[in-house]
């Protein structure tokens, strides 16, 4: 098992390095270079050269590359071109906001998806299954930002029970205010996530309930509830964990758009502004961050897997 995890960690690091490299070269492959694009066609040659020197773009490519890698390892992400602020400082304020939304989203999502999926599968073909399936389809069909707007409309504009603009940092405003401001965005990103995970839970559990070993359990005289939780659940969760992990991407993307709905200055806002301002250092930092989060998520999935699937736990790499 140690070997397996070590392999996964190495693989994750490799992917992060690959992303960093691609971002590095991709940026320098922009026709005319970032500086030209940034300053516009009318900029003087002198201004362009000054800018290039400032950014270290006048050095040989390999030097730049090595420097960029060293900077990355020391978490020095450079400065914003527009404000001159340290990107790491900007991140420190933006990341908790986005992660707060994502966290509520995942909690809400799993909180809805797992029970609903289980009920739906164990009552296949009954009314509750039907209702849950239709609800999941609807959830799957609404982009998070639309759910956000609907929630803002109902709870903010019409009922006026929750604020719909801005964020309240946990340390400064306390948990209640933080939660009040993060709840609607969290639900918005949680609903599509719940829909995807619920569908997977349902189909995976149905498949497991149909498995021959479940019939064996029944033939041994194991009761219904014990069959469901002791014999079926772990097997059913194996594919659910994969989907729940990969679909964190859905929650992150959702957060990026939902931040704009609720006027929260998270990494979504950061990314959009950076792209529109051609603020390349910020753009690359955000992209690298998101990719790292995803790689970390996948790594977590792989590790959770080792606890769920004995075939992996005992070094049976083939499966």
């Amino acid at each position, binding site marked *: 098992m140690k070997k397996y995890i070590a392999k996964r960690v190495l693989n994750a690091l490799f992917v992060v390095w690959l*992303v960093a490299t691609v971002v590095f070269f991709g940026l320098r492959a922009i026709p005319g270079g970032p500086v030209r694009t940034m300053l516009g066609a009318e900029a003087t040659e002198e201004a362009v050269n000054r800018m290039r020197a400032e950014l270290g773009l006048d050095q040989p490519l390999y030097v730049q590359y090595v420097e960029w890698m060293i900077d990355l390892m020391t978490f020095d992400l450079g400065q914003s071109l527009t404000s001159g602020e340290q990107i790491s400082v900007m991140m420190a304020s933006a990341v908790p906001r986005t992660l707060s939304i994502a966290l509520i989203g995942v909690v809400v999502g799993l909180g809805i998806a797992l029970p609903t999926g289980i009920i739906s599968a164990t009552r296949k073909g009954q009314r509750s299954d039907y209702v849950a399936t239709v609800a999941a389809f609807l959830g799957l069909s609404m982009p998070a930002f639309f759910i956000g707007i609907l929630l803002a409309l109902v709870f903010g504009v019409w009922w006026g029970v929750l604020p719909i603009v801005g964020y309240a940092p946990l340390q400064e405003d306390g948990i209640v205010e933080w939660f009040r401001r993060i709840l609607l965005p969290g639900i918005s990103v949680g609903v599509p996530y719940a829909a995807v995970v619920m569908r997977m839970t349902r189909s995976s559990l149905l498949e497991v309930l149909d498995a021959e070993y479940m019939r064996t359990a029944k033939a041994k005289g194991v009761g219904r509830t014990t069959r469901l939780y002791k014999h079926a659940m772990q097997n059913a969760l194996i594919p659910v964990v994969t989907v729940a992990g990969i679909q964190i991407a859905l929650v992150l993307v959702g957060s990026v*758009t939902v931040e704009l709905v609720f006027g929260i200055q998270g990494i979504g806002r950061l990314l*959009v502004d950076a*792209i529109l301002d051609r603020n*390349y250092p910020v753009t690359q930092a955000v992209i690298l961050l*998101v990719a790292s989060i995803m*790689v970390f998520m996948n790594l977590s999935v792989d590790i959770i897997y080792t606890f769920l699937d004995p075939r992996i736990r005992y070094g049976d790499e083939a499966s």
Partner: protein
Amino acid sequence: MSNDHTTAGRSDSDALDPDERERIARRYRDESPVESTENRGVYRRIRDQILSDKKAIFGATMVLLFVFTAMFAPMIAPYEQDETFGINQEPNSYSEGDYTGNGEIDRVWHVLGTDSFGHDLFTRIVFGARISLLVALTTVAFAFTVGTAIGLIAGYYGGLIDELLMRYVDFQWAFPSIILAAGLIAFLGGLGVTNVVIAIGVAFIDDFARLVRGEVLSIREEEYVLAARAIGTSDRRIMTKEILPNAVAPIIVQMTLMIPLAIIAEAALSFLGLGVKPTTPTWGLLLAEGRQYINQAWWISVFPGLAIMVVVLAFNMFGDSLRDAFDVKQSEVSEK
């Protein structure tokens, strides 16, 4: 033990001969409706299953309605896409003014109201369907072409090529597709339909590549492929004539399920302001505008949002039914 006895009865004179038996058996079977279903072809079975699936019928109907709306937008929309009337008009209200320029006051009906520029919302939504459909079809076609090629080559040749290509796909897999698309927009430098198509198209490549590679790996060692290889059929021919047709079912399902994802991706990019140019009528831009005026005009965001929802729902339902009919596993195709 011996088996002499097994022939004992056969000399019996009144036993029926096999042909006669078959004839009588058939006479009995013909009365039963069951036997006739047995000989149906695969296609008829699939067609019948889809036709008997309410979910599929609903999905297909709505999809057709959507395509129809997109194609005939100028005829369906009551006004020109850029025509402006009174701003932030409620649904089912009227604008009054000289819109035809003939000196008389016209009274213009807005079934869904108007937006903050005074565009008739229904007209904008109808024209928005065009962008959605156009972007969705071209992105999926693009991702399909490139992704299938990568998957085929990786799966078929294996080894180093496979390793390299799949490394790339894994790398792309690490990105949420909209973030990747946003990054590509940054790289392509500028807004517009073409850039949106390229960005989303590239971002969806990995889904097809993975799917096709998986199918190829499972088909590659099948007898008919080995046979084709043994008689010296060229690799390209084997890939396109033998392997691809057998992976058609999951690919079709995947495409049907990617279209709504592309629609959502386009809407999300436009909503973020990273998509088409701000004057283009799209659902995502309307939603962004509606968010701004959420206190004054809820309809600007709600109706385009519902449009997205209905269209995406329709494709998802249809795709889901296709998957059932083709008997493709849920885990085989990806949903994001």
